[in-house]
């Protein structure tokens, strides 16, 4: 059993955070909210998302599991104006999701969850450095790095209490530094890892530009990037595996 009403914005934010990595996903319909965990086919980027039942106008579920085609569902959510409500109801018999937006009814065929790639195990990461920045700062760093290279180094200089970003291209380089006072918070520890910009650019699309993003970093370790949405009732953690640094 699943029946819920949610604002179109919250639904879109939820879907957008997952669709940057995968085309299809499983959604757990727990009694206290929904949960999604997915990894891209190359096993490089992962998303772990929860959205509390309190983020919904109304919510009833009893622990079911559905599989969805994300771009389909995003298209439907896109039909709603900001602030409009979307009503979702699962038909257990037909395994279809009935979606209603102000008189518009859409019946979405679901995907057999068993046919969707298995949900990944969460990596066990003990990361020495933590940085809290505005989403807009990451956006700026990613856009600058993208002008010169395919990859980007994220690091923390513990001694000088600095978060930095490096991108080295064939001819041009980009370097960006944020001191402790430019950051919302910093737990200094030496860290530097290199990441693919292809992935980071996609994840960046999901970051809220006007809210906090927490980065956890290590030496040649995956980065964890965390943010809240839906007024703190939704939570997203991205994990991205590093590239091996040559030389």
């Amino acid at each position, binding site marked *: 059993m699943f029946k819920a009403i949610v604002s179109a914005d919250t639904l879109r934010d939820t879907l957008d955070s997952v669709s940057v990595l995968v085309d299809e996903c499983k959604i757990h319909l727990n009694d206290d909210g929904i949960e999604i965990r997915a990894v891209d*086919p*190359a*096993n*490089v980027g992962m998303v772990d998302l929860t959205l509390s039942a309190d983020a919904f106008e109304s919510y009833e579920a009893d622990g079911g599991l559905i599989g969805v085609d994300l771009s389909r569902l995003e298209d439907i959510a896109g039909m709603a104006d900001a602030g409009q409500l979307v009503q979702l109801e699962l038909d257990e018999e037909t395994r279809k999701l009935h979606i209603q937006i102000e008189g518009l009814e859409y019946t979405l065929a679901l995907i057999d969850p068993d046919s969707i790639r298995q949900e*990944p195990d969460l*990596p*066990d990461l003990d990361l020495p450095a933590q940085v809290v920045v505005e989403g807009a700062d990451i956006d700026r760093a990613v856009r600058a790095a993208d002008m010169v290279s395919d990859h980007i180094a994220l690091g923390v200089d513990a001694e000088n209490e600095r978060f930095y970003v490096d991108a080295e291209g064939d001819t041009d380089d980009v370097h960006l530094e944020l001191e402790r006072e430019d950051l919302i918070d910093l737990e200094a520890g030496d860290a530097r890892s290199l990441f693919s910009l292809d992935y980071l650019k996609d994840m960046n699309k999901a970051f809220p530009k006007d809210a906090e993003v927490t980065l956890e970093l290590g030496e040649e370790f995956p980065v964890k990037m965390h943010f809240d949405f839906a007024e703190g009732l939704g939570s997203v953690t991205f994990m991205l595996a590093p590239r*091996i640094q040559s030389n």
Partner: protein
Amino acid sequence: MGNADLRQLAVIEEVGFDELDGVVAVDAHNWLYKYLTTTVRFTRDDAYTTADGTEVPNLIGVVQGLPKFFENDLTPVFVFDGRVVGLKDEEVEERREERERREEKLEAAREAGDALEVARLDSQTQRLTDVIHETTRELLSLLDVPMVEAPAEGEAQASYMARVDDDVDYVGSDDYDCLLLGAPLTLRQLTSKGDVERMDFEATLAEHDVTWEQLVDVGILCGTDFNEGLTGYGPKTALTAVREHGDLWGVLDAEDAYIDDADRIRELFFDPDVTDDYTVDADLDPDLDGARAYLTEEWDIPVDEVERAFERIEESVTQTGLDRWT
């Protein structure tokens, strides 16, 4: 090469390359031969021929065949044939005669100036020369790809590894004999562009409700590399007969027939000449610059023939996967 009729019995499922991961013991001759013929067919011959006329199309073929493994988290272990198994002499002789016939035709086509026919026959008459053997091993060793030297047949060694070694997940071979050799999962069509075929040993036994011994007996009745089958016996007939009479001896008794060395042939499948003396280190650390130099400087292969493949290998080995931390 095994009896292709076994396909009628095998449980085979098509799977995408990206759904596979783990270690695959590749029947090296089978794989190499495919890439050799493709390279010869689609690449101009001066790209792989040195000034003194030595042909090394294998070097282009190998480097173009490898990225697909790396990009999909599949680690290949190449298993090379050792000596020819005694009972197979007849087949080897046949193949040699066949090749000589093709070479004669090729010569005739050259004289007649039939370029298309020359290209077609040329790709069929490829042989794994000593130079091809040595340079393939050198290239694989620069790329840190594990290799195993089988005491006898590569497909038997590869099947054995997949059967008993927890670190080996699949056999990579187009040979249906891997089923008789008990390889749990055999990947066919590894060299093709599309999906691969995953042949499942346990599922095959379950599908026909037979034991491994009975499956081998079915294979022997249809004919293997080591014996002619019984006249009139295809896989379906052989299966019914083995089920009815219990095993090969029962069937032979009932048919009042005889197969030379039948007990020895059985042993070649159950207890082939294989070795435990090998190591598989799936954590690869390829020397890409060394491999590039080996191909383009030592063997004069044009950079643009192999650069794209090297870039793909480089990209796949520099990007880690999150599973490393789980």
